[in-house]
């Protein structure tokens, strides 16, 4: 399993989750966990996904998600889970 955290930050609008999930499904990326919250009026979503079966290079995967974010005026980032795990867990 190669856990990756996908975060979406921006103004709430219809179809954000749908669009991201469609992209993930099309690339054989399994969603393990989804949570969301509103901070200062901004929509924040986090997904923990498994990119083990994703055929694309990580850099391509991350930049395509970023592109989808731009189309919907929000910021989408994909980062390996380790950075969060190492920082917040002993």
């Amino acid at each position: 399993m190669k856990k990756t955290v996908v975060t979406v930050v921006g103004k709430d609008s219809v179809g954000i989750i749908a669009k991201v999930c469609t992209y993930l499904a099309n690339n054989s990326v399994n969603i393990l966990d989804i949570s969301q919250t509103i901070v200062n009026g901004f929509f924040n979503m986090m997904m923990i996904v498994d990119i083990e079966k994703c055929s694309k290079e990580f850099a391509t995967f991350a930049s395509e998600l970023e592109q989808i974010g731009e189309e919907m005026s929000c910021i989408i980032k994909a980062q390996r889970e380790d950075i969060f795990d190492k920082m917040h867990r002993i």
Partner: protein
Amino acid sequence: MINIHEVLETNDMIEKDNLDVRTITLGISLLNCIDSDLDRLNEKIYNRITTVAKDLVATGKAIETEFGIPIVHKRISVTPIALIGGSACKTPEDYVTIAKTLDRAAKTVGVNFIGGYSALVSKGMTASDELLIRSIPKALACTDFVCSSVNLGSTKTGLNMDAVKLMGEIVHQAAEETKERDSIGCAKLVVFCNAPDDNPFMAGAFHGVTEADEIINVGVSGPGVMRKALESVRGADFGTLCETVKKTAFKITRVGQLVAREASNRLGIPFGIIDLSLAPTPAIGDSIADIFEEMGLQRAGAPGTTVALALLNDQVKKGGVMASCYVGGLSGAFIPVSEDQGMITAVQEGALTLEKLEAMTCVCSVGLDMIAIPGDTKETTISGIIADEMAIGMINQKTTAVRIIPVIGKGVGETVEFGGLLGYAPIMPVNQFDCSDFINRGGRIPAPIHSFKN
């Protein structure tokens, strides 16, 4: 499993508070390049660096992308060149050819600095050491990325005052050689007492002779993150303040440890150490001086600054040590003037003087760093400033350094612009009383009594 608030906290640190990994520095031993023929030596050095470091920059960028953390610099340190060039170099000009080779290799592999144009002369200078030292001004003037350092003393050996005297002259010459560019040569030259073998930070990085063939050292950063964390404990007591610094340092260092491990695995080069340093940049908010202000000082330099720095430095180490399996290098808080907007402001407003900076170096890593002084400062006065700083290192069994820039053609009140991460600096006044007779004595200052621990 990680929760959304932890993810947002990390990403806020990166996006809003300038959290980054400051440098991945690849240390390369050049001992196996030694040759008595200068051309062959240069060729071997070039080939060795460009072979070992060929994937360094690409690997650094891939890690940046995957973890979403900026890695600001990818750099190289090499064995002190005075040890490598000894049998081939007969003149300072011969050494300059090696500097050019290092510069060319750095450009080929795409790093932005290469350190190790260095000599270790804490007790005495070999002929080779002296030739290298005398070549430094030219070497720094005709290269872009080469950094130079000289170790002038240690707690174990005392201070080499002949070398201290010589370095006053060399710093001045380095300024003269680059006077058309605001004496920038001196920004790439640092002198040390107790120089560490595994420092990843420039300009003082070199690959010590106690090291293996190749090693990955990582320097972390994060003054902006520290300041932000302290915002949440305004008015709280010192215990709370210290705990907050410690916890934040832990988080910052864990990211450095992760990046170091990844870089080490991907490049197939052993991991050396994490340098736990808070390294400021001229970016707004990425400042050590701002941390002091957040702690409750009106400006860096106000009474209380030395103790504020002492607690900051100590707590950063306490948090950082637990976050990494190997810690080394300089490890502490850097207090460069030109690279820290808050320090620049403090100098401009008259809150921070050279003497206060010297006092602060008693309790933090390194020393007088990126300080611009008038270009007409006497060479012996520069040596005197260096000697004072070396004494602090020798007696306190810590690393101290001086990176001072006598800006030729400029005086107190003027400003010098180095550009990029080197920033800009107001020229600071220097005590005008003379120390020539003292410096001109020459010889060595013996090691202090507490160095005899055997």
